[in-house]
């Protein structure tokens, strides 16, 4: 097997495996069907997943270095901007800009 055909096969396998994880729920449960448990899960997962995603993003930060301080400040800026102005884009740009300036200094 040549290198390129190995790469192409890997990509094919990964495409199928990834699409399977995305497609499965839509194949298993049809639209509009009354399924109390599924509806319960569907309604309550977004807030939980959002909480988990934030923690997941913050888990790699080295908190005993400046990186931890910068992350804390940038996060604070994002939150304060968002509570004060409620403009998602503005909050994200402000927080990211503060973080970029801090780590590149």
């Amino acid at each position: 097997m040549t290198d390129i055909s190995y790469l192409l096969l890997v990509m094919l396998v990964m495409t199928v495996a990834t699409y399977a994880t995305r497609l499965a729920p839509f194949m298993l449960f049809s639209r509009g069907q009354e399924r109390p448990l599924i509806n319960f899960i569907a309604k309550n997962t977004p807030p939980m997943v959002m909480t988990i995603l934030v923690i997941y993003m913050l888990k790699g930060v080295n908190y005993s270095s400046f990186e931890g301080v910068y992350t804390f400040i940038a996060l604070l800026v994002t939150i304060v901007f968002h509570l004060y102005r409620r403009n998602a884009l503005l909050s994200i740009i402000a927080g990211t800009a503060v973080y970029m300036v801090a780590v590149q200094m």
Partner: protein
Amino acid sequence: MIRSVIKTTLPILFGFLPLGIAFGILFQELGYPWYFATLMGICVYAGAAQFMAVGMLGAGVGLFEIAISTFFLNSRHLFYGLALLNSFGAWGLRKFYLIFGLTDETYALMTTITVPKEFNRERYYFLITLFSQSYWVLGCSIGALASSSLDFNTEGMDFAATALFTVLLIEQWLKVRKPLLFVVAFGSSCITLILFFQHMLLAAIVLSITTIIVLRFIKSKKND
């Protein structure tokens, strides 16, 4: 509609572009032509899995193992789909693409934002998905193509993903107002961080969903 979608997905641009560039640079070290990084962004379109693939390609890992690893790494999508079962309209090419393009970021956006009244929801979601993938493909290509000659310092730009999820978390909090859900998610995250650290994402999602199902079951038993 396009202007509104660009504004909505701009945070995803800030997140995907530097991450895509990082992938492209890493991929380039394997020695394949740059356009395979583009192709991977188009076909596979999964950040974490693509990074994992670079390591596995370098080591020449078998296809079966790659398939299984990819499936488990991405299996959190199973739960994302559940929350969007009724959001993607009737079956057709557009729906297949909307499902194909489901990522952490687009899921987070779609379950939190309210589509402006004047726009068709499925079309709006379609454009969100299309634009987001374009940013990713663009990033992968730039990284692989210009890995040595990039002069814009994107260091720290990936904080945009953290900021995006934080903003969406605040929005969820203001919208949902069920403290228990956030407490359960936080607790699940702490437990799975200790147990799995690197692979806490899926474990935390499974644990938190299991917990609220058990809590609901206990509550309904009490009411009987």
